[in-house]
């Protein structure tokens, strides 16, 4: 493993320990000498500093760790939501993928995923600048049909491929990526129109349909 990746892995572990207080492990125990850069290396790089009874992030270190954890959890979301790999594969794929994600791609992924706030395990994803912008304009670029407001219009972005029967059903009915869609009812179940047809589905099905929201819809 490259030095950079080892540093990033270490930072992520320290982030969970220092910022999220997960577990009461001794700091020296959480780093695996095989996989992670040692505390000494991190200190040398100016990412952490020793304090009384432990360590803390330097300002640079903290930012680096935040971005590393963000990339890791975004990658998990990507593999979980869109590619729908199983838990183990997701973990492994995300671990490799996170290290090759550039900043612009990271923002693209974040946008595609609709600026998610938590990873599939429910831990918070530190927001990037794109998330803040999106939050200010109240806009999530791509969101599941179930999260749209009633009357909202958009373009079908993709159908979650997890359950292929569900995909086949929706596609066969003509609910296809690229088509304009309007959510007409959100309670007690979901109803929407595509073309001149209207469909009614339950929450499960609505959550499988991802929609590019049109920014001017409001």
């Amino acid at each position, binding site marked *: 493993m490259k030095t950079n990746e080892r540093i990033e892995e270490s930072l992520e572990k320290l982030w969970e320990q220092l910022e999220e207080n997960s577990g009461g492990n001794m700091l020296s125990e959480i780093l695996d000498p095989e996989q992670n850069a040692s505390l000494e290396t991190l200190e040398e790089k100016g990412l952490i500093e020793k304090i009384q009874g432990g360590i803390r992030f330097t300002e640079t270190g903290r930012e680096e760790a935040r971005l590393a954890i963000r990339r890791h959890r975004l990658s998990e979301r990507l593999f979980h939501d869109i590619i729908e790999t199983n838990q183990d594969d997701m973990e492994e794929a995300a671990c490799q993928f996170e290290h090759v994600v550039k900043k612009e791609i990271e923002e693209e992924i974040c946008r595609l995923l609709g600026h998610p706030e938590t990873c599939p395990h429910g831990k918070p994803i530190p927001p990037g600048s794109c998330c803040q912008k999106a939050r200010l304009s109240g806009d999530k670029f791509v969101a599941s049909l179930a999260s749209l407001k009633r009357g909202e219009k958009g373009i079908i972005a993709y159908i979650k491929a997890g359950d292929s029967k569900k995909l086949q059903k929706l596609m066969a009915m003509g609910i296809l990526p690229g088509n304009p869609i309007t959510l007409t009812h959100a309670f007690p179940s979901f109803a929407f129109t595509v073309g001149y*047809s209207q469909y009614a*589905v*339950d929450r*499960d*099905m609505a959550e499988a349909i991802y929609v590019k929201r049109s920014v001017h819809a409001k």
Partner: protein
Amino acid sequence: MSEQSSCSCHGGKTCEETGLKKIVMVGNPNVGKSALFNRLTGSYVTVSNYPGTTVEVSQGKCKIDSDEYFVEDTPGMYSLLPITEEERVSRDILLNGKSDVVLCVVDAKNLKRMLSLALQLVEASLPVILVLNMMDEANRLDILIDEGGLEKKLGVPVVGISALSGKGVDVLKSRIHSYCRQESTAEVFYGDTLEGAINALAPVMPAETGLSQRALALLLIQNDPHISELVRSVEGHSPEFLDSTIAELEKNLVEPVGYTVPMMQHSTAEDICNEAFNPPADREPSFAQRLSDWTMEPLTGIPILMIVLYYGLYKFVGSFGAGTIVGFLEEDIFGKYLSPWINEMLMAYVPWGPLRELIGMQYGIVTLGIRYAIAIILPIVGTFFIAFSIIEDTGYLPRLAMMVDRIFKKIGLNGRAVIPMTLGFGCDTMATMVTRTLETKRERIIATLLLALAIPCSAQLGVVLGMVANNRAAMAVWAVFMIGIFLLVGFLTARLMPGDRPNFYMEVPPLRMPRPGAVFIKTYTRMQWYFMEILPMFILASVMIWLGNITDTFKVVVSWLSPVMGLIGLPKEAAVAFLFGFFRRDYGAAGLYDLQKAGALSGNQLAVAVITLTLFVPCIAQFLMMKKERGLKMACMMALFIFPFAFLVGGLVNVLLNVTGIQL
């Protein structure tokens, strides 16, 4: 598409059994296929199960000029790659049968999305005529369709019609009559990778099916299990070649086949549509659209449902059917004229007592069986079927399904089950048959049980409502208990039976004004079925009751039942009513009705009696249908649960009322 033999107008293969040319109708659900089928065939139609399945296929004959055609209407399908059993039946009809013309019926305003199926059929070398139905609706929306342009692009005849008004049907008939295969037809290009695999696989596909080898290869690539089995069963193929070709393909494709293939089909369809199909920009929502929105909104939808129930069920079926018409037929025609006349004739000409009892008198075939069938059941069920057909024709049911989906999920069903459940209020037997349209076995079992237990059929409902009409408190107790039991038993069954959560997805057709002709045909077909199925049961029941009476079997059974009656706080005489109730749900109710009229039942007893009776037994006809649809074991298990449960609840209600000191 591959070259097809040139004109084969009159040399085509014909329908094996009849020697007639065969027309097969296919299309998405809700495109008006049945309406067109009725236009083509008139009402000489047989409905039968597709071999080995419970899916129904309608068949009829159609005359064009002097030639007679055999017409087959298939269940709705979205794609050649089937998901439901119904879609598989439709596909198998195309796969196994040789058809002379395949009418691909689409909803003209949704041409863009439905053209994909048409393309698949054309690509499968089927003799397709594309029928653009509901042209009148499309015209009203200012959608312009260039039929000639479509015809050129697809290479098959295209005819715009309105099956409801009949416009264009004559043109369609003449195009069927002069049908002739074109030299070249439209084809989807799936990209180099997929095309490579299709071309490699196509030559080893069986050549003697209704579908082209290319279409079979495409289905095989999409992992269609039946096609895979079919192809592998052909001798002389090495399955390794198939497996390796498919594995190789999957490796080279970026996206899954299940995504790529439909996407390519739809984008080809869109390309074709872009030139021939011109939809206008958005328009103001029409009144029908607004009304449609209201029906799906709880705030307005629930009042609308109440109005539908009040006028459709209570007023039309309850007051008019069960009141006015039954009163006239039962009391006037049978009560004053027919029954006394029969009995007089019997007294005069039939010397042997038991034979008199068999035909006339209290429980005879004519005075009980036929009288019940014609004078009581016919008007109630008939008015119910009229109301149901009207409601069905407006397109209201999918909207109701959407409204109740959440509640139905709690009892292991999904919104779709609202259709058999509503139909159950007409005839539980017919509704039990309709449960086959539910997707999973689990849903079918739960729905069957609930129909048998908690949904009273219209005949029963008529008598029960008649009994409690003057006792509003008893009516309320009855209604609350029935709804509570429906939900509770459904909830518990869903917990007890493992299985996936059912998914709810349904197309919601536009609200339409029902057409009298279509309503008439639907009602007529249902009534016909009802009579063929039910009338023998009535006669059988009369005979059984007669036998039971003359052999004293009934007395014995009644003597067993009497203590049970005592336990749930009913008079002994009620035992007779419950026993007869097994032969016909409503016999039982009617028996109690007489008891109540005679003033033998207190308010509490009345409530206990109607609750027990509604829960008690599916009638024999329903039980037989349960056996047919769910198997003997399952039907017996349900009956074994329902019998004690009905009395248990009856007893519980009795105790509850007594303990709390409530007098209804």
